[in-house]
């Protein structure tokens, strides 16, 4: 149901049900844009019918008038013919030459034609014949009928008179009768002519009246049509005005020189300006300076062609000074006299534009930190590479990866991790130059594009500034957090044309920094590429090593220092690479740690060592302990406790025989999760040892808080234990600390008898090292245990190959 505008506002009207003719009429092309309603649809056909009627009636009246005039003419001729006939009869009687028969025949023929219509001789007396219509008026017909009867009487009387002759007794009476009939015919003919004339005049009078009536009706119809057309036009004009006034779009008419000639009132809503104030201004005055050029160009192009249409976007100044984004469609109607200018239909697209800008920003920025994302960063690097010349300033990329960020996520939660990323981003942003671009590539990876650097030194200098910026502790949820990052720097070379290549180089340099101990910055060197390729190959081989049985477990005996009896063994994994030979643990354990392969490898070692220990216990009947190293990643693995439980159950090993060695750094984060995990392991009955004690964040507090059973004193202290230096004192202090805390102490790396002797003096309980035995494979350990000999004998005899 259409909503139509009315003087009282918008009302709902039922759709007019139009008949076919009015629908047809309302669509006549001559009406142009005017849309007729139902009333007007009827006026036009009425008008057409009336005009057609007038024309038709006029033609009919003209024909009728002409026919009537002819009939009157011919009827008038009858009187002359009667006189001629009478005269001809008398002439013949008097002996003169005449032909009354011919006159009588014409009389009769004419009388018949006048009454019933037909062909008669033309009134002008030529041989031409004319058709006259039958008379339909009853009065006329009666008179003409009488006329015909009288003619019959006349001609019959004439014939009788001619037969009688002048001397016949009835001659006189017949002559009198002939004269009387002639007079009667004259009278009747005149009467008929008069009647025909009156009838014709009456008909013509009716015709005139009808024509006047039709003319009046036509005039009325034309007037009504004019009024309704005017009303329809006025309604449409009002509707158009209403649309223009109430439209949210701006409708502007500008002259060829850009002067505003008309402005719709909606400009007040959109730009906070009064329409009247804008008329006379130039449109360009409202356009943002940055947009003026392309708007001017677009308008100039449109001015050249009539009815051409184009569109453009620009910013228009609001009355309050702000800028609104607008989209305009412009049509050149300067050739239309009703418009005479360029019509702009302008829509406020500010919200849409802002949204687009937001979406664009989101598409190219990291939503968490607000830094550029990988796509934008790659684009910027591409542009920087394109600008960088072969000489002079160049571009560099710094790749930054936070060290141990996973630990932060796992211990403080992802919320804190995100906060840290934001804080890191802020610090990076704070030290960059305006032309540089910082990006977060994902996770804890950041990258910095340095443009216009003079060389590698400048890039390294900026990377160092980044390192310093991150060195300050971060405060997260009341925690003071020291964050380190590994950085890699790559400077663009002339052959670099792709962003990916430069990014990869910086990534590899960062990788080197990680491999070299983290918390440092490395620069990319072309040789590094080969090194890293080899590293990746090694990782690939390591993934298959377990399946292919290339990993083996070696065991290093742990002896009681006073008796030098073997009380336990430390399990150490070895990789026998088919091409590289034996790969040292220092070369592949970090890779396994980094790739997560340490989890399955550690689980396998755990299973192997437990089963081997149980087997040796069974054979020797001695309660040998088995020590297994746990990496940080293993310790954080949620399946650790299950793995230990499974290994113990599979091996049927007493949990008290299993010693799990963890490093000090693992205990660095004194968190509830760490305590809980240690508690779960202790609950199994296994013992916990702190490996390499004294090298890390040695803290007396965690020795008290955590359920530790054994301290393994690092080899660096043992090396000096036999001397008198500070390190010797430290070794003594550590051993004394173990005594104080009632912890068992194990001296690592004992390589000389003096060291063993000194350790015994210090009442260190256990020791391990090359002095007693090198790491041995399972068979060698079995043989050693079979002999029941003291381990020291093995060490001194040097029978054991290096592990």
């Amino acid at each position, binding site marked *: 149901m259409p909503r139509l505008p009315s003087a009282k506002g918008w009302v709902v009207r039922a759709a007019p049900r139009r008949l076919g003719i009015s629908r047809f009429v309302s669509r006549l092309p001559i009406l142009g844009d005017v849309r007729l309603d139902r009333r007007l649809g009827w006026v036009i056909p009425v008008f057409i019918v009336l005009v057609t009627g007038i024309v038709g009636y006029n033609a009919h009246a003209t024909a009728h008038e002409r026919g009537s005039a002819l009939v009157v003419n011919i009827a008038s001729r009858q009187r002359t013919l009667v006189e001629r006939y009478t005269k001809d009869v008398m002439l013949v009687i008097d002996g003169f030459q005449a032909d009354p028969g011919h006159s009588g025949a014409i009389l009769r023929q004419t009388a018949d034609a006048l009454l019933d219509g037909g062909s008669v001789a033309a009134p002008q007396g030529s041989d031409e014949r004319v058709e006259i219509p039958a008379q339909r008026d009853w*009065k006329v017909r*009666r*008179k003409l*009928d*009488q006329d015909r009867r009288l003619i019959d009487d006349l001609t019959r009387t004439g014939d009788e008179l001619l037969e009688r002759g002048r001397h016949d007794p009835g001659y006189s009476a017949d002559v*009198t009768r002939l*004269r*009387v*009939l*002639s*007079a*009667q*015919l*004259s*009278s*009747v003919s005149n*009467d008929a002519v*008069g*009647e025909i004339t009156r009838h014709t005049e009456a008909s013509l009078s009716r015709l005139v009246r009808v024509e006047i009536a039709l003319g009046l009706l036509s005039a009325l119809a034309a007037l009504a049509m004019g009024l309704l057309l005017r009303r329809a036009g006025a309604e449409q004009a009002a509707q158009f005005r209403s649309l223009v006034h109430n439209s949210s779009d701006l409708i502007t008419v500008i002259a060829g020189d850009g002067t505003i000639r008309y402005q719709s009132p909606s400009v007040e809503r959109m730009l906070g300006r009064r329409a009247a104030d804008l008329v006379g201004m130039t449109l360009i005055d409202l356009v943002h300076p940055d947009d003026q050029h392309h708007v001017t160009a677009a308008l100039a192009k449109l001015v050249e062609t009539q009815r051409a249409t184009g569109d453009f976007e620009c910013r228009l100044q609001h009355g309050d000074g702000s800028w609104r984004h607008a989209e305009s469609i412009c049509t050149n109607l300067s050739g239309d006299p009703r418009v005479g200018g360029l019509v702009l239909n302008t829509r406020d697209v500010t919200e849409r534009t802002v949204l687009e800008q937001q979406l664009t920003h989101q598409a190219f920025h990291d939503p968490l930190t607000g830094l550029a994302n990988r796509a934008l960063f790659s684009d910027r690097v591409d542009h920087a590479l394109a600008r960088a010349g072969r000489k002079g300033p160049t571009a560099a990329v710094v790749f930054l990866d936070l060290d141990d960020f996973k630990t932060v996520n796992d211990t403080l939660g992802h919320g804190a991790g995100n906060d840290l990323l934001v804080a890191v981003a802020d610090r990076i942003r704070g030290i960059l130059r305006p032309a540089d671009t910082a990006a977060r590539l994902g996770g804890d990876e950041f990258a910095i594009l340095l443009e216009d650097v003079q060389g590698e030194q400048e890039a390294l200098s900026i990377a160092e500034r980044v390192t310093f910026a991150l060195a300050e502790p971060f405060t997260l949820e009341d925690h003071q957090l020291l964050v380190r990052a590994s950085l890699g720097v790559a400077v663009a070379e002339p052959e670099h044309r792709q962003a990916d290549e430069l990014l990869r180089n910086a990534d590899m340099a960062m990788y080197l920094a990680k491999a070299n101990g983290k918390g440092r910055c490395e620069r990319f060197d072309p040789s590094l590429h080969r090194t890293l390729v080899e590293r990746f190959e090694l990782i690939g081989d390591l993934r298959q090593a377990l399946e292919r049985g290339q990993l083996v477990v070696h065991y290093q005996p742990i002896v009681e220092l006073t008796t030098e009896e073997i009380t336990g063994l430390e399990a150490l994994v070895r990789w026998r690479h088919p091409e590289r030979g034996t790969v040292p643990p220092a070369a592949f354990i970090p890779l396994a740690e980094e790739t997560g392969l340490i989890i399955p490898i550690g689980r396998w070692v755990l299973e192997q060592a437990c089963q081997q220990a149980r087997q040796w216990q069974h054979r020797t009947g001695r309660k040998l302990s088995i020590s297994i190293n746990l990496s940080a990643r293993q310790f954080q693995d949620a399946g650790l406790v299950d793995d230990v439980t499974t290994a113990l159950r599979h091996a049927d090993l007493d949990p008290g025989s299993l010693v799990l060695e963890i490093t000090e750094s693992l205990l660095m984060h004194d968190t509830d999760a760490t305590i809980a995990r240690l508690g779960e392991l202790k609950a199994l009955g296994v013992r916990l040892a702190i490996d390499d004690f004294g090298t890390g964040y040695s803290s007396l507090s965690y020795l008290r808080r955590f359920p530790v059973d054994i301290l393994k004193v690092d080899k660096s202290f043992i090396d000096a234990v036999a001397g008198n230096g500070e390190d010797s004192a430290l070794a003594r202090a550590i051993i004394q600390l173990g005594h104080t805390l009632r912890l068992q102490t194990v001296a690592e790396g004992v390589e000389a008898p003096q060291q063993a002797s000194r350790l015994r003096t210090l009442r260190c309980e256990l020791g391990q090292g090359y002095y007693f035995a090198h790491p041995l494979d399972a068979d060698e350990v079995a043989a050693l245990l079979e002999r029941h000999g003291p381990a020291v004998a093995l060490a001194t005899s040097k029978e054991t190959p290096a592990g």
Partner: protein
Amino acid sequence: MPGRGDGMVWTRATWRWTGAAVVVLALVSLVVPLAAARRHERPQPAGTVVDVQLDDFHVRRSTDAIPAGMVRFRLVNNGPSTHEFVVVRTYHAPDKLPLQRDGLTVDEEKPGVDHVDEAEGLDIADHRTLTMGLAPGHYVLFCNLEGHYLGGMHAALTVR
């Protein structure tokens, strides 16, 4: 406005009925006075009535003798020709009235022919009433158009 809300609602049907009533009232107010006027115009019958039928070419009257006094001739022309009706007092026989020099029409000015009254131009189907006072005597009723009288269009009327 008082009564606007609770008064009669002028629907389209109401307008139509009101318009029809106005038209009927207008017609009644026009027709009734005309009918009344016609009744007043109609004269009351007076004197002797003689019905006369004219046709080609006879005069037929309802009576040939009437008393003297006011006479109303109710004329009807059956046609088909146009006729006239002439009343003369004469001592001539109806078919012996003196003619004019053309020998075709009665000379109404001749001695012995006393023209009383006449009605002219009676067209076919015309009705007309001609009233006159007739003294006792001999009268002839005729049509004096050319040839009509001689064609037999005359009749005698005696007034006593």
